């Protein structure tokens, strides 16, 4: 590989999706004389090809990093350079970024390809693919910057693209409302990000990660603590944790590939990425870490229960995503950063697969998303069914499938790490049980049993099933990147936890400790819970759609009434304040202000006209008076 290509690799990985965005967003619609005339095949082809090229470059970066521990650093330009304030755009491809880049471009390519089939009935799909490419650009900027400020640009960029894509079908008001909700809730978290950046800059005088890591001075602990809390708050917004998870389920209003790419595989993991990146700061605050772990555990539980009663196939998966992200935060909280990233990766595989499978089902059922109307689709959508089975096995954590390795590792680390413990472990275990229940419920309602409304005419085309198959393979074997140390140890082999070995130069591995249970027992427990959950779920939902516990069902169906509480606490008062301003301030003040300015000048003009009477001697008099006044002032000045 020649040196120039290697040295500018991060830039090209980043720029290719942007190029695709410009092609699809500007050049192609101009050439086709209107966005509405763009053809899905051409637009999707452009978008997929640029993503695939970007993926190849990402693979080259991966290969380059295999031979060296050091990151590929590419300074681009100094954006701000005012004495001490120096902010440079520096791209930084280290092993963590490389892993994220592979996920974004790899899964991104598959989802772009899939979208060609999924959006085939759309007019003007170039807009869709332009947004998708723009999203990938922003997400890559997020993971490739070495600087919090540019991470923030990416952070906002993905938020914007999320907004644009959720409301892709903007002519329906519900979609626009969902997009607005997602955007606003994210803004609440972003405020934390901005404030945290200000505090960090004031304390360390820099925003680049490597420099920040050396500025974690103990004397500034108080301020740093606030920054850490704010940054965690920002992460809860983007990664849909309590208390800011409410936007993600509504975000399912967007097209399904969007849900797979943005709201399962990549954007929502930005918070976990940021946390892993800034682990040196969070580590200083054990109390905050406990809070993080509990936030994750409770979110995992909470979202898992709500997922039990959802009837929209995508909403089940949405709550499932929230729940799995909770698992990741649980791992981060106990200090097992590598484990969190491991689960991030496997989750990207199997959740993207599940979403795309759900999209295939929806496509086959002509847009129907209500699982109660489906049933018996296994025979009509055989390939989708099999791949969904692989994804479900992975998320439940059946042995050999990827989720088995990552989820067990999380549960094990929660048990053995000092900040973990039995309570957190119990939360995680129950959440794992719930995962099995809602996943099997989804399968039962959708694929098995009797066809209820005769939905589902056709299997999806090749461009949609190919990504499904690839992702199914990844979801099945992806876990072998993280074979538990206990296994290889028991077999007397070298450690085969290749992900841990890969990440260790960037993120330290969690300490290997002896816990109350061995890793094998934890694995067995987790699998037993998964299987038990699956069986319970199968027996329960074989004959009915809803939870046979009416009290709990109402609570879960109301989603613990969080939306209502937020509505009463924040949304309604804000609406009311807005209405008051519209009525009183806007009408009374803002709209009249211009008029007041005008009439004020007119009035004063009328008065001033009297001076301008045309009498030469009046002017001379004023002139003289002015002269006398100036001389007087000067005299007084000289004598004071």
């Amino acid at each position, binding site marked *: 590989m020649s040196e120039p290509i290697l040295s500018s690799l991060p830039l090209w990985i980043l720029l290719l999706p942007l190029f695709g965005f410009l092609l699809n967003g500007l050049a192609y619609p101009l050439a086709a004389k209107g966005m509405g005339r763009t053809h899905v095949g051409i637009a999707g082809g452009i978008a997929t090809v640029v993503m695939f090229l970007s993926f190849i470059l990402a693979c080259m970066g991966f290969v380059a990093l295999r031979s060296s521990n050091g990151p590929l650093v590419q300074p681009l330009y100094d954006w701000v350079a005012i004495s001490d304030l120096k902010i440079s755009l520096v791209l930084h491809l280290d092993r963590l970024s490389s892993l994220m880049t592979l996920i974004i471009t790899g899964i991104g390519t598959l989802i772009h390809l899939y979208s060609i089939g999924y959006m085939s009935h759309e007019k003007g799909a170039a807009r869709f693919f332009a947004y998708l490419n723009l999203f990938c650009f922003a997400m890559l900027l997020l993971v490739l910057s070495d600087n919090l400020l540019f991470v923030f640009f990416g952070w906002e960029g993905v938020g914007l693209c999320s907004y644009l894509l959720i409301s892709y079908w903007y002519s329906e008001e519900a979609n626009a409302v969902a997009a607005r909700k997602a955007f606003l809730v994210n803004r609440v978290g972003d405020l934390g990000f901005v404030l945290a950046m200000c505090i960090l800059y004031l304390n360390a005088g820099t925003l680049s990660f490597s420099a920040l890591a050396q500025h974690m001075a103990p004397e500034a602990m108080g301020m740093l603590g606030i920054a850490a809390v704010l940054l965690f708050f920002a992460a809860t917004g983007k990664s849909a944790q309590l208390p800011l998870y409410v936007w993600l389920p509504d975000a399912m209003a967007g097209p399904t590939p969007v849900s797979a790419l943005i709201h399962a595989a990549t954007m929502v993991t930005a918070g976990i990425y940021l946390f892993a990146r800034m682990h040196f700061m969070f580590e200083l605050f054990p109390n905050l870490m406990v809070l993080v772990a509990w936030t994750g555990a409770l979110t995992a539980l909470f979202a898992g229960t709500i997922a039990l009663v959802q009837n929209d196939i995508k909403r089940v998966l949405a709550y499932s995503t929230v729940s799995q992200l909770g698992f990741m935060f649980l791992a981060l909280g106990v200090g097992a950063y590598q484990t969190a990233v491991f689960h991030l990766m496997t989750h990207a595989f199997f959740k993207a697969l599940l979403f795309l499978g759900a999209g295939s089902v929806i496509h086959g059922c002509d847009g129907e998303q209500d699982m109660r109307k489906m049933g018996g689709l296994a025979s009509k959508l055989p390939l989708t069914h099999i791949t969904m089975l692989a994804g479900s096995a992975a998320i439940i954590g059946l042995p050999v499938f990827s989720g088995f390795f990552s989820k067990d590792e999380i549960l094990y680390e929660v048990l053995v790490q000092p900040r973990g413990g039995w309570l957190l472990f119990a939360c995680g275990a129950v959440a794992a049980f719930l995962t099995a229940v809602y996943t099997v419920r989804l399968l039962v309602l959708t694929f098995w049993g009797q066809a209820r409304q005769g939905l589902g005419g056709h299997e999806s085309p090749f461009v949609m099933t190919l990504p499904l198959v690839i992702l199914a393979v990844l979801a099945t074997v992806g876990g072998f990147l993280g074979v538990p140390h206990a296994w290889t140890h028991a077999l007397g082999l070298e450690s085969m936890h290749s992900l841990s070995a890969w990440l260790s130069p960037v993120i330290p591995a969690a300490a290997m400790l002896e816990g109350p249970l061995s890793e094998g027992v934890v694995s067995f427990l987790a699998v037993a819970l998964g299987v038990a959950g699956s069986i319970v779920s199968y027996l329960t939902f074989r004959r009915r759609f809803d939870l046979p516990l009416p009290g709990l069902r109402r609570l879960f169906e109301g989603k613990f009434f969080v939306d209502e509480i937020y509505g009463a606490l924040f949304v309604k008062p804000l609406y009311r304040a807005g209405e008051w301003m519209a009525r009183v301030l806007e009408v009374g003040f803002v709209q009249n202000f211009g008029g007041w300015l005008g009439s004020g000048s007119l009035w004063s003009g009328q008065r001033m006209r009297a001076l*301008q*009477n*045309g*009498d*030469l*001697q009046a*002017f*001379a*008099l004023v002139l*003289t008076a002015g002269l006398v006044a100036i001389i007087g002032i000067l005299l007084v000045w000289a004598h004071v």
Partner: protein
Amino acid sequence: METGTLLHLLSAYLFCMGLLTLLLRRNTIVMLMGIELMLNAINLSFVTFAHELQQVSGQLQVFFVITIAAAESAVGLSILVNVYRNFGSIKTNLTTRMRG
């Protein structure tokens, strides 16, 4: 009182008379005469200072002032001829049409 001080006082008196003429008289020719009076008051002041400080530059300045005053009168009077042609009068209170 010294001669110099007396001359300064005379100069200030003449200047004020010229200023009052300019401000109070409506007849433009008389106003021009007021301006001449002020300029000559200044000349007197210049000469007095030149004498007191034993410097020739004050006296030189007077020649400039006289020259400029002559030019000013010529321009001013020719404007007045035109004003009289247009307004039929040279009283300032009757020539306010231009509003400045």
